[in-house]
């Protein structure tokens, strides 16, 4: 854990610098690894770099549980780094704004703004070398068909799980830029359970900074801003552990964090197999009755159970059996 924290911190600062020079178009050249597209980890890294370094604007369709939701996504890079805006086109006009590490979610229907502090997404590329064996050990990686998505030629890649503890992934990357244009989670019968797909997209275009600023700026005075305190995530040994971790998963983060609506700090452990992650939350059992058991939304499964005086909640982009197994093997040292 401590080693990966250092690696994560180093990667973050490195990427912050790279983000600054990406405006001149050389960041990608510096950072692109000497990876082959046939190498799963190298390919994922390229997709991550493309998502981070390119300017693009498009219409994104999210399908899950028989629902279809459309949103507008704009991503741009300038001298200050990365800026991204996602606006729901159906239903309430909710939006997500990301400026480098900070993510803000606007819920106009509830008059709430949620501000997520520093995110750790930048840690991902540096974690990959550790996960190389995992990816190869638990997924078959193969190149699939060339297909058209959003009017562009893409190459499809498939991560097929070798056991029942993870979903299959099919990802379509733009041949010209490497950007992912379509992503599916597949169940054990190879049927999609969740899909993100661009229906139209422009890549490498000039985008004004104004385009990616929040619509509600400044927010109306009667809106509530829920902001986590700086230093929200305290990395430390929590004393909690998972006795029977599904094969291939290893711990990438452990610490306490404050969650809104929770009085006491919540222990948060994250495990990853290199492609997806599972979070374990442990907190004192709340006074109010809590939903217990399994629930699901698209590719996300959640399992909650009471463990003596504690509430254990396990959430991840994995099948229900995986989060359930983890939930039942959480213990205190």
């Amino acid at each position: 854990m401590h080693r990966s924290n250092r690696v994560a911190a180093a990667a973050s600062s490195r990427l912050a610098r790279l983000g600054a020079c990406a405006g001149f178009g050389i960041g990608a050249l510096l950072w692109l690894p000497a990876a082959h597209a046939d190498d799963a980890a190298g390919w994922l890294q390229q997709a991550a770099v493309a998502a981070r370094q390119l300017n693009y604007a498009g219409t994104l369709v999210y399908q899950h549980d028989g629902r279809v939701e459309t949103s507008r996504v704009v991503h741009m890079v300038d001298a200050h780094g990365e800026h991204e805006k996602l606006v729901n086109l159906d239903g309430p006009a909710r939006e997500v704004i990301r400026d480098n590490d900070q993510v803000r979610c606007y819920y106009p229907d509830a008059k709430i703004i949620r501000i997520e502090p520093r995110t750790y997404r930048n840690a991902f590329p540096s974690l990959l070398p550790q996960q190389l064996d995992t990816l190869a050990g638990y997924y078959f990686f193969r190149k699939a068909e060339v297909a058209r998505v959003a009017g562009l030629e893409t190459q499809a890649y498939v991560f097929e799980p070798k056991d029942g503890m993870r979903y299959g992934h099919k990802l379509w990357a733009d041949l010209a830029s490497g950007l992912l244009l379509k992503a599916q989670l597949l169940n054990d019968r190879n049927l999609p359970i969740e899909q993100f797909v661009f229906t139209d997209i422009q890549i490498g275009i000039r985008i004004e900074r104004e385009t990616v600023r929040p619509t509600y700026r400044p927010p109306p005075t009667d809106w509530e801003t829920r902001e986590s305190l700086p230093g929200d995530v305290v990395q430390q040994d929590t004393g909690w552990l998972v006795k029977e971790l599904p094969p291939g998963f290893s711990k990438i983060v452990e610490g306490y964090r404050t969650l809104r609506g929770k009085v006491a700090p919540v222990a948060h452990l994250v495990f990853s197999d290199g492609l997806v992650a599972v979070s374990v939350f442990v907190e004192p059992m709340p006074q109010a009755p809590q939903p217990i058991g399994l629930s699901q939304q698209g590719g996300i499964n959640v399992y909650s159970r009471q463990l003596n005086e504690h509430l254990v909640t396990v959430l991840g982009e994995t099948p229900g059996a995986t989060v359930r197994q983890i939930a039942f093997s959480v213990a205190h040292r």
Partner: protein
Amino acid sequence: MVMGKFLAEPDADEPARPTELAPEEVSLLMDGELDVDRVDRACRGLRETASVETWVCYHVIGDTLRGGCGLAPGFAARFAERLAAEPTVLAPPRMRPAPAAVAWALAASVAAVGVVGWVALTTMPVPPGAIATAQQAAAVRPADVRRPVVNEYLLAHQEYSPTTAIQGVRPYLRAVATDTPDAPE
């Protein structure tokens, strides 16, 4: 999904005859709260006694709470009959899904609905005749059946997930697309 799992499980080597499950046991099993050493016996009980009716009833209540109850009486029995009559599909269908594939997809979506239903079941005692009450409840506050808390956890989880690194802000759609934004205070 869940029922399929039970069907696929090998029979436990238990000599004891299965006995009728207590409703509490069915409820615990649905919630995954049943002691591990009792699960095999409970599954046998579901297969070999009338307890499965309780199981089905609880799921119907869950479905109704969610407002998605559209199955005719006796659906499960007819479905099982037709499924048994279907040939085993050894390869995934390419162009047009075979009837069995459609049936599986239906079973999967039914199971998913059941899964959501469990959550509601755990927070209240459920007499078998509760469907009318459940319908009223569903008419008043259907959103309660979904888990409003998930959002807090989901947002906290998302920042660490490799999917966020690969796809940028897109997976955050999960957090803004569904559920209520408000966590219970």
